[in-house]
C-alpha cells in the first residue's frame, strides 16, 4: 500500500562513481578468490571452513549490485536528460530532486527484480520510440535537426542495453544500412552530418551486438535494398572503431571478408548500380571496403579473446598475402581486398596481437596454439619474401614469447612435442631460429630481440651465482668443474643462437640481392648497417651498457625512412667485417643436449667407484644446503610420480617420461653436484667458457658448423 511521499536525491555523477567503485570491488573479490583458494586447505587441515564460501557470496552480491547500480544510473539519466551531469559534457554535477512514493522502495530482491524488468521494458520502449521518430519524421522537422537530436539522445544511452535493443530492433538491418549510407557517403544526401555520429552509432551498435545475436539472418538483410544474402559491409567501416563489438560478429565479418565463410552470405562491400548511390565524389566503393577491412582487422586484433583463434585459422592467407604484396606487381595479385597492399599493416597488426601479451593473458591456450602454428609455418613455409611489417610483427611475437624461445635453446632435454604448454612450446630450437631469422631480416626488431637475448643470458648467470654461492670456500677442495659451468654454457648458447640468426639473416640478404636493383641494394646496405650496429652493441660484460647501446625503439617506419634516404653507394665493407668477426667468435655446439645427458648418465653410473663430491652452498639467511648428486636425497625425486630412475637405478629414456618426471630430470641435470662433478664437461660443452662473450677469437677458433660460409 502506498505510503507518504519521501524526498529522493539522485546525482548521476555520484552513481557513476559508485558503479566504478563497485566494479573494482567486484574484481578485487574475484582475484582474491583465486589467490586465496590455494591456501584455503593446507593439506588436510581446513583452515577456514566458512571463509571462501562467504567471500564468494560477497562476490555474487557485488556482481548483482554492479548491474543494479548501473540500471539506477541509466534511469536517473533518462529521467533528467537535460541535466549536464547525465552527459558529463560540462562536468558539473546537477543533482535531481524528485518525489517518489514509498511504492518506489526497492528493498527486497523481489521488488528489485520487478523494478528492473519494468525499467528494461521502459528503456526498450524509449529506444523504439526514438527510432520511430527517425523513421517517420513529422511534417515540420528538418532532416538535419532530426538526425542531430537522435544522435544526441543515443549518445547518452548508447550503453543502456534495453534502450539500444529497442532502437536497433525498430531500425532493423535494412533501416540501419540506409541510415549509415545516408550519413557516411560523402556523395550522398547528408553533406553535413552530426558530429560524433560514427562514434555514437558505433558504441550503440557494439552494445546491441552483445545484447542480441546478430546472426546470418540479420547480416543477410544488411543492405540498403534488403537484397537477401548481400552484406554491404563497407557501411560498417566508420562504426567498427568505436565500442567493443561482440567477438561472434567480428569473427563472422572476418570470415566473410577472407571469403572463408560457409552459407549463402556474400561480402559485397558497397552495392553499386542503378539505385546504388554511386555518384562522383571521393567515396569509391573500393576505397570504402579497404578502409572497412582495415578497421575490421584492427577491431579483431583489439579483442584478445578472438585474435589468436581467428589469426590461427587465417594464418596461411595472412602469410601468403604478405608474400604476394612483396613479390608480385599489382596487376598479377589476386583480386579482393583481403590481398591488398593497403591492408598489410593491419594484417601484420593482427599477427602481432594474436601472439601478443594481451592474448597470452586472455586466452593462453589459443595464443600458444597460434604461436606454434606461426613458428611451424615460418620454419617450413614456402620460400618467399614477406613484408617488413610482418617481419616486425614476428619480432613482437618473439619478444612476448621470449621465455619459451630461450627455454627451447637452453633446455638439456629434447622438445616435448606431446605437450604444447611445456617450456619451449614443444618446438625445436631450429624452428624458432627460422622465425627469428625472418624477423631479423626486417631490421626493425633486431635491437629489441638482441636485448632479450642478452637479458636472458645475464639472468641465467645471475641465477647460477645465487644458487651456488660460496661453493668454493677454502675447505671445499677441488671439483672437476664449477657448478656454474652449465649455466655459463646456456647463457653462451642464447647469445650464440641470436648471433647466428643475425649472421644468417645478413647472408640471406646479401645472397638475395647480389645483383638486384638499386632500390634493393640500398635496402641491403641499410639492413647490414642495422644488423652490424646491433652486433656491435652487444657487450656481455655489462648488461646495462648493452641495453643503452641498443636503440630498441626502431620501427618499420624508421627503417623505411633510412632506406629512402640511403644512397646506393653506402659502403657495406665495415658492416660485413663486423658480422664476419661475429661469425668467427660464435661457438655453436650442435646436439650438445644429448651429449650432456649421456655424460651425466655415465657420471651417475660410476658413482660407486668414483663417488660424487657433495657441494655445499649458501642457501641465504645464514643457512647452507648440501647437494649430494643423489636425486632422492637432493629433493628432486619426491615420490613415485616424479621418480625418473628406472630399473638399475638409471634414468629411463627421456621420451618415455611423464611431464613431472621430465621436469624433475631436467632440474637434476642442472643441479650443482651433477654439474660440478662432471669432469667430461670441457669436452661436451667445448672449452669451458670462462666468459660468455662471443670472444672475437683468432682464426683457429672457427666453428665446426657445416653451414659456415663466411660473409665474403
Amino acid at each position: 500500500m502506498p505510503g507518504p511521499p519521501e524526498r529522493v536525491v539522485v546525482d548521476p555523477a555520484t552513481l557513476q562513481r559508485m558503479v566504478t567503485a563497485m566494479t573494482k570491488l567486484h574484481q578485487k573479490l574475484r582475484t582474491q578468490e583465486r589467490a586465496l583458494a590455494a591456501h584455503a586447505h593446507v593439506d588436510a587441515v581446513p583452515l577456514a571452513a566458512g571463509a571462501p564460501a562467504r567471500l564468494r557470496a560477497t562476490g555474487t552480491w557485488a556482481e548483482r549490485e554492479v548491474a543494479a547500480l548501473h540500471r539506477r544510473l541509466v534511469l536517473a539519466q533518462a529521467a533528467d536528460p537535460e541535466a549536464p551531469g547525465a552527459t558529463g559534457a560540462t562536468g558539473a554535477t546537477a543533482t535531481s530532486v524528485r518525489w517518489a512514493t514509498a511504492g518506489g522502495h526497492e528493498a527486497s530482491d523481489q521488488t528489485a527484480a520487478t523494478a528492473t524488468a519494468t525499467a528494461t521494458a521502459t528503456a526498450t520502449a524509449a529506444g523504439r520510440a526514438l527510432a520511430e521518430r527517425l523513421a517517420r519524421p513529422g511534417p515540420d522537422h528538418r532532416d538535419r535537426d532530426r538526425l542531430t537530436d537522435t544522435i544526441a539522445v543515443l549518445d547518452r544511452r548508447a550503453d543502456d542495453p534495453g534502450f539500444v535493443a529497442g532502437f536497433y530492433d525498430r531500425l532493423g538491418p535494412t533501416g540501419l544500412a540506409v541510415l549509415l549510407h545516408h550519413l557516411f557517403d560523402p556523395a550522398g544526401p547528408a553533406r553535413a552530418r552530426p558530429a560524433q555520429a560514427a562514434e555514437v552509432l558505433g558504441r550503440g551498435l557494439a552494445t546491441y551486438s552483445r545484447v542480441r545475436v546478430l546472426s546470418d539472418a540479420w547480416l543477410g538483410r544488411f543492405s540498403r535494398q534488403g537484397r537477401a544474402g548481400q552484406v554491404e559491409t563497407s557501411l560498417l567501416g566508420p562504426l567498427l572503431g568505436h565500442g567493443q563489438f561482440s567477438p561472434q560478429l567480428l569473427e563472422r565479418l572476418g570470415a566473410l571478408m577472407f571469403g572463408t565463410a560457409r552459407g549463402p552470405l556474400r561480402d559485397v562491400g558497397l552495392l553499386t548500380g542503378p539505385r546504388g548511390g554511386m555518384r562522383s565524389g571521393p567515396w569509391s566503393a573500393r576505397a570504402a571496403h579497404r578502409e572497412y577491412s582495415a578497421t575490421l582487422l584492427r577491431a579483431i586484433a583489439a579483442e584478445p579473446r578472438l585474435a589468436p583463434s581467428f589469426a590461427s585459422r587465417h594464418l596461411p592467407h595472412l602469410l601468403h598475402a604478405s608474400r604476394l604484396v612483396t613479390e608480385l606487381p599489382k596487376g598479377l595479385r589476386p583480386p579482393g581486398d583481403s590481398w591488398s597492399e593497403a591492408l598489410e599493416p593491419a594484417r601484420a597488426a593482427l599477427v602481432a596481437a594474436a601472439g601478443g601479451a594481451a592474448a597470452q593473458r586472455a586466452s593462453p591456450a589459443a595464443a600458444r596454439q597460434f604461436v606454434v602454428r606461426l613458428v611451424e609455418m615460418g620454419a617450413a613455409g614456402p620460400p618467399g619474401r614477406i613484408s617488413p611489417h610482418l617481419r616486425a610483427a614476428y619480432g613482437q611475437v618473439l619478444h612476448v614469447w621470449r621465455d619459451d624461445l630461450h627455454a627451447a635453446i637452453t633446455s638439456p632435454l629434447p622438445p616435448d612435442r606431446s605437450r604444447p604448454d611445456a617450456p619451449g612450446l614443444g618446438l625445436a630450437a631450429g624452428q624458432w631460429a627460422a622465425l627469428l631469422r625472418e624477423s631479423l631480416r626486417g631490421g626493425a626488431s633486431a635491437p629489441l630481440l638482441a636485448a632479450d637475448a642478452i637479458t636472458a643470458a645475464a639472468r641465467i648467470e645471475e641465477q647460477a651465482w645465487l644458487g651456488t654461492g660460496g661453493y668454493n670456500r677454502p675447505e671445499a677442495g677441488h671439483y672437476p668443474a664449477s657448478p656454474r659451468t652449465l649455466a655459463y654454457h646456456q647463457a653462451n648458447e642464447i647469445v650464440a643462437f641470436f648471433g647466428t640468426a643475425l649472421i644468417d639473416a645478413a647472408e640471406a640478404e646479401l645472397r638475395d640481392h647480389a645483383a638486384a636493383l638499386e632500390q634493393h641494394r640500398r635496402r641491403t646496405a641499410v639492413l647490414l648497417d642495422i644488423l652490424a650496429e646491433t652486433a656491435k652493441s652487444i657487450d656481455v660484460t655489462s648488461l646495462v651498457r648493452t641495453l643503452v647501446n641498443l636503440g630498441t625503439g626502431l620501427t618499420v617506419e624508421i627503417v623505411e625512412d633510412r632506406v629512402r634516404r640511403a644512397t646506393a653507394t653506402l659502403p657495406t665493407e665495415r658492416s660485413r667485417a663486423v658480422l664476419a668477426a661475429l661469425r668467427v667468435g660464435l661457438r655453436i655446439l650442435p646436439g650438445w643436449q644429448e651429449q650432456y645427458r649421456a655424460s651425466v648418465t655415465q657420471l651417475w653410473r660410476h658413482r660407486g667407484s668414483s663417488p660424487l663430491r657433495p657441494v655445499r652452498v649458501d642457501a641465504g639467511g645464514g643457512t647452507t644446503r648440501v647437494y649430494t648428486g643423489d636425486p632422492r636425497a637432493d629433493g628432486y625425486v619426491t615420490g613415485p610420480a616424479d621418480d625418473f630412475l628406472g630399473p638399475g637405478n638409471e634414468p629411463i629414456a627421456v621420451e618415455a617420461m611423464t611431464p613431472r618426471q621430465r621436469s624433475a630430470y631436467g632440474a637434476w641435470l642442472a643441479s650443482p653436484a651433477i654439474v660440478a662433478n662432471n669432469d667430461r664437461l670441457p669436452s661436451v660443452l667445448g672449452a669451458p667458457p670462462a666468459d660468455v662473450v662471443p670472444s672475437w677469437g683468432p682464426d683457429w677458433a672457427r666453428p665446426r658448423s657445416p653451414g659456415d660460409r663466411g660473409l665474403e
Partner: protein
Amino acid sequence: MTQVTPLPGSAPNRFRQAVEAALAAVVAERHELAEAFGALFAEADAGGWAGPAADDWWRGAAGQRAAALGALDSWADACRHLLLSEPVRVAHDDPRARHPGPAPAPRAGQR
C-alpha cells in the same frame, strides 16, 4: 634434501611454512579488500544519493562488508592459532617434513 644445521636429524616443518604463507596472503588480501570497500562507502556517503532505496542499499552493503572482512579475520586467527603449536623444525620422519609446503602463487602470465 639435506640441510646442514646446528640440529642434525631435523628438517624444516613444511606444514608450518604453508600456514605462514597462508597467513601472509590472508592479511594482505584483507587490507586490499578493506580499501576497496572504503572507496565504495566514501562515494556512497558523499550525499549524491539519498532516499529510502539508498538507505536500504547502505544497510545491505555494510552487512556484506562486515561479513567479508570478518571471514578473513577469522581465517587469519585460525592461522595464528595453528602457528602457536607448530615447531619450526621437526624430525626427518615426521609427516610434516614431507608436507608439500606453501601453495604456489597463481600464475600471472609470462614474465
